């Protein structure tokens, strides 16, 4: 028997851990990208705020998207519930209440990471300390995922962790595609042509997919191929296709899954049927928008079916999601 509240908490725990990891990774990649671009190119930090879906919230509190403003906002800012430290705090709260169910050593690792991230914040904000700081957050999140996968029974509870992780991954992948691919540079002019490749590489890097892309797809980086890879690849664990497949596997083993499977099927069909060449020349934005809408519906359906089997009460702990 799995309590709805426990299912919801571990689902959110997994989402928040994944969110922290993804946020750390895109900051790291962006940081590297900026170092590669010519100095006079106006390519600021705003894109990061957009990718994480926090534009409005950011501008409520900041006039300018300066490096420091954006970094603080994404790493540790109480006005941003999706910042790294807030995500880790929420993951921790959700795990704290399910300690009896999730392996003890995972709790200890998360607890550690949460405290360390907070205590070493200045390293994350400084240019010099940033790489090591973000790297460590990413590594610890992976360590956590490993502990959960390697020391916890792969039962229904674990399925909710897996669904949370993959829902968040799919979400991040579509966001990165939307912002990065549709608006690669402020305007692509002659001078910046050579840098287009670098940017596509950073798209892959943002999703930790560069190496696998080169191995399995192509040595050369081509926009169309990258997009196809991120949407369709069957073996890389952060592609939209792969993440939705993981969610499907979990759902198949759960009771009362019809409604959720229907929504999921719609998302899978959209991804399967899309013509990458076509949307790349026109309509990428509306495709991603539609995809994100279905993604949200899927989350809502999971919530309605499993977390609130009877009415609208929220047993779990969650911040406003983006």
């Amino acid at each position, binding site marked *: 028997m799995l309590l709805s509240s426990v299912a919801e908490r571990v689902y959110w725990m997994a989402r928040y851990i994944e969110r922290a990891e993804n946020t750390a990774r895109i900051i790291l990649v962006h940081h590297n990208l900026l170092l590669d671009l010519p100095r006079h190119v106006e390519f600021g930090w705003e894109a990061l705020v957009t990718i994480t879906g926090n534009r409005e919230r950011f501008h409520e509190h900041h006039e300018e998207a300066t490096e420091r403003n954006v970094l603080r906002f994404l790493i540790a800012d109480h006005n941003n519930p999706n910042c790294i430290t807030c995500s880790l705090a929420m993951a921790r709260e959700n795990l*704290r209440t399910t300690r009896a169910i999730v392996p003890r050593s995972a709790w200890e690792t998360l607890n550690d990471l949460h405290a360390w991230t907070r205590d070493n914040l200045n390293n994350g904000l400084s240019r010099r300390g940033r790489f090591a700081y973000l790297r460590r957050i990413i590594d610890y999140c992976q360590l956590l995922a490993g502990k959960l996968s390697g020391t916890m029974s792969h039962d229904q509870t674990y399925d909710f962790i897996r669904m949370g992780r993959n829902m968040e991954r799919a979400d991040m992948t579509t966001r990165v595609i939307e912002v990065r691919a549709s608006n690669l540079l402020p305007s692509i002019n002659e001078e910046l042509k050579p840098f287009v490749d670098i940017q596509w590489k950073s798209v892959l890097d943002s999703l930790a997919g560069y190496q696998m892309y080169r191995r399995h797809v192509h040595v050369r980086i081509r926009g169309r191929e990258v997009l196809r890879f991120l949407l369709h690849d069957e073996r890389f664990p952060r592609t939209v296709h792969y993440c939705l497949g993981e969610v499907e596997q979990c759902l198949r083993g759960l009771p009362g899954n019809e409604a959720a499977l229907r929504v999921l099927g719609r998302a899978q069909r959209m991804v399967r049927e899309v013509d990458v060449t076509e949307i790349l020349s026109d309509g990428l934005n509306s495709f991603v928008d539609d995809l994100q809408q279905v993604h949200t519906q899927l989350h809502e359906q999971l919530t309605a079916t499993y977390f609130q089997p009877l009415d609208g009460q929220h047993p779990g702990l969650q911040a406003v999601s983006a």
Partner: protein
Amino acid sequence: MPIEWKDYPGDGSYDELITPGGNARAAARGAVRYIGSLSDEDLRERRDAAELAMQVMGITFTVYSEGEEGGIDRTWPFDIIPRILSAHEWRRIEAGLQQRVQALNMFIADIYGEKKIVRDHVFPREVLAKSVNHRSQCEGIRPPLDIWAHICGSDLVRDKDGTLYVLEDNLRVPSGVSYMLENRLVMKRVFPELFENYSILPVDGYPTRLFDMLASLSPRPADYPTVVVLTPGIYNSAYFEHSYLAQQMGVELVAGSDLVVLDDDCVYLRTVGGLERVDVIYRRIDDLYLDPEAFLPESVIGVRGLMRAWRKGNVAIANAPGAGVADDKVVYAFVPAMIRYYLDDDPILPNVPTYLCMYKPQLEYVLDHLDELVVKPANESGGYGMLVGPSASKKERQKFAELIRKDPRNYVAQPTLSLSTAPTLCDGRVEPRHLDLRPFILSGETSHVTRGGLTRVALKKGSLVVNSSQGGGSKDTWIVETGDK
């Protein structure tokens, strides 16, 4: 340097392990000799090992503090020198507690039923009328087996002359039993050699007994019952215990929002597979927050409709709502009379003599002797709102005299007991520290008393306050077979 028990600085109180002459009491002989032979370094190492074990096992309680989100988990100070009682003495205590809880349960059932004890003028009606723990919502209800207080934690203290008194009976949501269990595990890790040569009665059967007792209350005895532990949530100071007991019993730990009462007046658990019927709730939430429909409407930690389901007999609740009516310092004074009235028996364990300010002559006595007495409000727990006469200033005593005159029903007074001590490791030295003892009594089809209980110790020199929130710690409690009858 090994401990020289002859130099053990007794402070005039009764010591549980050492006689005034510096000898070990019979039941403690082996442990005292052994601990006495250890070097300072040995002792320190064992203490560190115990501390580490506590941390690793995650034995914590929650403390609120300002500026922290929610609360923080702390490990509870633990002293490695056990408190030891002989099985011979314990058998008498056990019988006394069973007798007491039986009478208390009969009293609660009577109060919500026929009220014979009031009609027969053994228990005054006005005490009932002013009781804050009396729940009119429970009138006329008859829970399974007529038992209301399924889990009782009674606090025992020992005075100078060695007499053991019952200080109070906790009938609402008594806590501490998880520490009793964990303390024993820690001791086995730290002093395995002592367990080899001693016959110490085991305590680890408690979760099983608790589960069996709870399961026996199920309204659907034919099926395997669904039992849950209902917690107010992670910010409750006893959350560790709630989670621990649920885990040990192998049942779900739930919050109010996990439960729902439907139109059929049954209680259900929200699971990913839909709703599942609940048979027995071990609740660790106070009465008033249990059901916003029946009690405080603003409660967000309770379950709407729970009282309806309970009244209909569709779910069992332990302890039963309203059981706290007997958990009141005025009612306490009547327990010996209850034992005589319901059981036609003399109390085996004495009450601390208690003056009830509601009676004029006793009120006069209390006001005249404020400098010797401890004055307590009837319904506070955790040592709040008390006056300790001998250590209070004249001004404080005057203030209290006024409070008492204004609301005499709300105050009782007792002579100041000195509380027994036991050797405790303090800054590397062994010194006497005051302590009490909370055994737990389970009542179902049969009744069961834990073998020992939770010994709480005031770690500050001279202090009589054993509460965890105020500098208290705990010790393992050993009931030891000595061979005497």
